[in-house]
């Protein structure tokens, strides 16, 4: 057991860190100068990462990837999180659509799509959930009929992040309504400029509009944009959904949250003492630190298992569950520490940290819903890890 990185890895880390520092300074300079809208700025940042060779770390070289080792992949995501670097705009392209095409796409699809995902020339969204198919994703009903060389799609998707600026959509459709629900689904790549697509933004509980509804009315998608087999889309989507990650970069984000929370508690005056002097506040913070640290070492266990191929890793559902619970506990504690000021909204006198704790609270509430609810994660752990019988499909 050994958590040290090799000399080569450490050299790689040092190189990347140095590059990152400089790149971020340059980027901030451009930002300050007011260069382009936020979307354009994010594209520029992603292209910068790509050109320097720090994007698509796991992807094949033939399509613009780096084919880097797992440790190098981890180092890059660790350093990005630690430096609080801007996010890469093309999240769905890089984490969902891209890996799916790498694994299941045709040669033509790989050449056509992968490089432009990396450069952020083409942005992606994900058309999986529907109003009647949330936790029960395979119940989706958006229809696609195969006519000659194309599909004709009708239906509605929901919770589609970034649909209004995306060029392409990774889309699950029902192609065989008579088959069992998991056997009649096909995975398509859909051009968002196709006629018949309508995108409506959807506002979330916190007031932001990251999500959209997408309506499909006789939308044509060429057959060559099908990934994998006809009616074989569920298995492909599932492999992406269950794609286990070490989750280490998520831990660094938690660490940052926790540090800010500790500092808040050390700042907030409650009568004659600080909030941190209250043992209940302190012990809650410590317990969260324990959980965060547990997630970190869990991440190392997963990473080692991936490196060795031992298969001894722990289910990604577990990490997702703990991570979302922890985020919510932190966000709630933030409001508790704020005391009477928890209720004061942004732009008001006496507001605390410009409302960041309230915004963070509403953000955190989404973590246990998006990407599979905590209830579904519990099912996945119970059935997938403990081998308990299905509760859902009796």
């Amino acid at each position, binding site marked *: 057991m050994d958590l040290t990185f090799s000399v080569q890895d450490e050299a790689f880390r040092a190189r990347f860190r140095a590059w990152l520092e400089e790149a971020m300074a340059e980027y901030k300079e451009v930002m300050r100068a007011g260069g382009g809208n936020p979307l354009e700025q994010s594209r520029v940042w992603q292209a910068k990462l790509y050109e320097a060779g720090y994007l698509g770390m796991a992807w094949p070289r033939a399509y613009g990837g780096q084919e880097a080792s797992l440790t190098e992949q981890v180092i890059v995501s660790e350093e990005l999180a630690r430096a609080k670097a801007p996010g890469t705009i093309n999240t769905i392209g890089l984490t969902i659509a891209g890996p799916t095409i790498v694994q299941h796409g045709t040669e033509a699809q790989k050449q056509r799509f992968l490089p432009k995902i990396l450069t952020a020339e083409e942005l992606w969204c994900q058309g999986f*959930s529907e109003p*009647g*198919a*949330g*936790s*029960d994703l395979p*119940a989706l009903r958006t229809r696609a009929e195969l006519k000659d060389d194309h599909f004709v799609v009708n239906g509605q998707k*929901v*919770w589609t992040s970034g649909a209004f600026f995306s060029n392409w959509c990774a889309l699950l459709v029902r192609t065989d309504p008579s088959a069992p629900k998991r056997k009649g689904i096909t995975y398509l790549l859909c051009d968002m400029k196709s006629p018949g697509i309508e995108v409506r933004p*959807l*506002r*979330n*509980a*916190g*007031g932001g509009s990251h999500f959209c509804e997408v309506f499909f009315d006789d939308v044509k998608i060429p057959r060559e944009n099908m990934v994998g087999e006809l009616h074989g889309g569920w298995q492909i989507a599932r492999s992406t959904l269950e794609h286990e990650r070490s989750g280490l970069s998520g831990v660094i984000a938690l660490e940052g949250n926790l540090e800010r929370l500790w500092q808040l508690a050390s700042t*907030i*005056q*409650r*009568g004659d003492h600080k*909030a941190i002097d209250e043992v*209940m506040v302190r012990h809650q913070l410590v317990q969260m630190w324990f959980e965060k640290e547990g997630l970190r070492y869990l991440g190392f266990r997963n990473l080692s298992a991936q490196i060795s191929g031992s298969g001894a890793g722990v289910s990604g559902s577990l990490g997702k569950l703990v991570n979302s619970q922890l985020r*919510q506990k932190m966000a*709630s504690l933030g*409001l*508790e520490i*704020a*005391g*009477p*000021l*928890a*209720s*004061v*909204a942004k*732009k*008001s*006198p*006496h507001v605390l940290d410009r*409302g960041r704790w*309230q915004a963070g*609270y*509403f953000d955190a*509430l*989404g973590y*246990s*819903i*998006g990407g599979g*609810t*905590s*209830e579904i994660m*519990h099912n996945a752990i119970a059935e997938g890890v403990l081998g308990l019988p299905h*509760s*859902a*499909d*009796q």
Partner: protein
Amino acid sequence: MDFELSEEQNLIRDVAARFLEDNWSSDIRRKGLDEPPATIPSELWSEIAAMGWLGISVGEDVGGGAQDMLSAAILAEAAGAALLPGPLISTMAAVTALDRSGNQSLRNAHIRALIQGDKRATLAVEEANGCWGPDRVEARAVLASDGSGTLTGTKILVPDGDGADLFLVAARLPDGLGLIAIAGDAPGLSVTPMRRMDGQAVVEVQLDGVPFDENAILASTDGDAERVLREAYDFWSVLLAADLLGISSAVLEITTEYAKERVQFGRPIGSFQAVSHKLADNLVDVEIGRSLLYGACLALDEEAPDREVLVSAAKAYLSDTAVSVSESGLQLHGGIGYTWELDIHLYLRQARCNAASLGDAAHHRERAATYLADSFG
């Protein structure tokens, strides 16, 4: 032995629910988040006054309803369930303080106009010290031998304070704490608008040597001003607890209905124990909280020796309950629950704000601990 709502109270509850359903909409609250604050239009305020809500706890001789504490709490519960903003509650608390204080000249001067909705009064207690309640008041009233005085301090989170005609301001008097009635246009008083996370309007009140007369102090007939302040704060806290109960039961009802209708995996989600047992736990909290609230109401009416600890029990328990029921309501709705269009986040916002008003759960647990230490000691 009768611990049920009386027929009259059942009527108050039903009428209040129907009135608010016909005359108020959660959409006003949603809009109020983008274009704050969310307030009660003056016509509606007049109707509320005409229905006798504002003076429900006030003596009949000045036109009040002379009802018990529970009747007032029933109105506050209905207001919480309907997402009506807070001025109803703060006004009820302020007029009741005036009514009961024993200061007849103040009472006679103001109370009819207040409960008829022609003038507006509020309570200003909290200060920017991270704490709650009378014990932490630092605003200071200096009294000269001729009975004139000046009041200095800063109050925050004062509800319904923008344009209020009368502020009942908690302050340190030479011989203890008390409430002082200050006119909204008094010299040295200035008001700065604040907004809560749920879109409700509150204000900061700066008091810079505001002049007052000793007759402006709300003292009881035996001259005890501190008791008046503490009773008013307890009365107000119970109404806020009732508002939190209204929030809790409304969200529980909405979520239960959704769980019966929403089908996933070929079954209503309410048939999954991950959903149904969570809702059962929520119901337990609501019913225990409701029982504590009734207990607190009765104890206040009877001036029972354990009234303070029961007020703290109700406020603490229902603060926790409203937040947890609202959070699990949001969660159990799945993606839909996380949308702007659904009312759950409006309830959650109000729950969080009211849970952090007039003492959070930890504050009230500590207050109760002091009482119990005596009782068990």
